[in-house]
C-alpha cells in the first residue's frame, strides 16, 4: 500500500510539473487546455493507476489488521517514503527543515491512533 501510494504521488507530482503552473496555463489558455494537458499526460494516468492499487491494498490490509493500526502506520510510512522517493526520483531539495517537518508529521499522525 505504501509503495503504491508513494509511486502514485511521485508520478502525479512529476506529471503536474511537466504540465506546468496550472494557474498561468488557465489564465493564458483556459480551463479546457489545463484539463486536456493533464488528462493526456501518460504519467498522470500511471499515477492514478498506482493510487487505485494503493486503495485496494489498503482494503486488503484492513481485512487482516485493525484500522487503528493500519491507517496511521500506512499514513506515517507514506510520508517518510514520499520524502525519500521525492529526493531520489524528483530531485527535490529535502533540507533539514523538510526532514524535521516530515518527522513531526509522521509521528503526529501515528499518535492520532491512540
Amino acid at each position: 500500500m505504501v509503495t503504491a501510494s508513494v509511486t502514485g504521488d511521485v508520478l502525479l507530482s512529476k506529471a503536474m510539473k511537466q504540465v506546468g503552473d496550472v494557474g498561468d496555463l488557465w489564465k493564458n489558455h483556459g480551463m479546457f487546455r489545463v484539463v486536456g494537458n493533464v488528462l493526456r499526460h501518460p504519467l498522470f494516468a500511471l499515477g492514478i493507476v498506482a493510487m487505485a492499487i494503493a486503495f485496494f491494498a489498503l482494503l486488503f490490509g484492513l481485512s487482516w489488521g485493525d484500522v487503528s493500526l493500519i491507517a496511521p502506520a500506512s499514513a506515517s510510512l507514506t510520508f517518510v517514503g514520499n520524502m525519500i522517493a521525492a529526493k531520489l526520483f524528483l530531485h527535490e531539495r529535502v533540507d533539514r527543515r523538510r526532514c524535521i517537518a516530515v518527522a513531526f508529521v509522521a509521528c503526529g499522525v501515528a499518535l492520532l491512533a491512540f
Partner: protein
Amino acid sequence: MTFRKYLVLVGVAVFGSVGDTLLSRGMKDIGTISLTHLQSLLLALQNLWVVGGILLLIGFFAAYMTALSWADLTYVLPATSIGYVIIALIAKFVLHEQVTTARWIGILLITSGVGFVAGGPALTPLPEPEGETEHQREPELAMRGQS
C-alpha cells in the same frame, strides 16, 4: 508564495478533511455494506452527505494537482497535513468524540511540522548551468505550458 497559492494549500487541507468527514457521516446513515450486496453502494449516491463529500473530494483533488504543479511534493504533503488536525477538531467539537492526550500531542506535532515546512521555499531551484545565473523552474514550466 502568493496569497492565492496559500489559498490553494488551505483548500487541499479543508476540502480533503471536510470531504472525508461528510463521507463518513453519510456512510454511517447507510450502514454496513456487504460484499454480497455491493449494489447497495449505489444507494450511497442518493445520500446528500455522500454527494457533498464526493464534491468536496473532487475539489481536494483539483487543489492537490494545482499545488503539485508549482510546489515540491515534499512541501505540499506536510504543508497540507493540517487536514489531520481539522479532522480531529471536527471529531471533538462537532461529532463530540473523545480526543485523548496522545492525540492532542499528535495534533501539536503535526501543527509544528506544518509551520516548519510552510516557512521554507516551496520549489527546488534548477541546477545552475556553468557561466549563467541561477534561474527558477517556473519560467521553464511557463514555457512548457505554452507549447
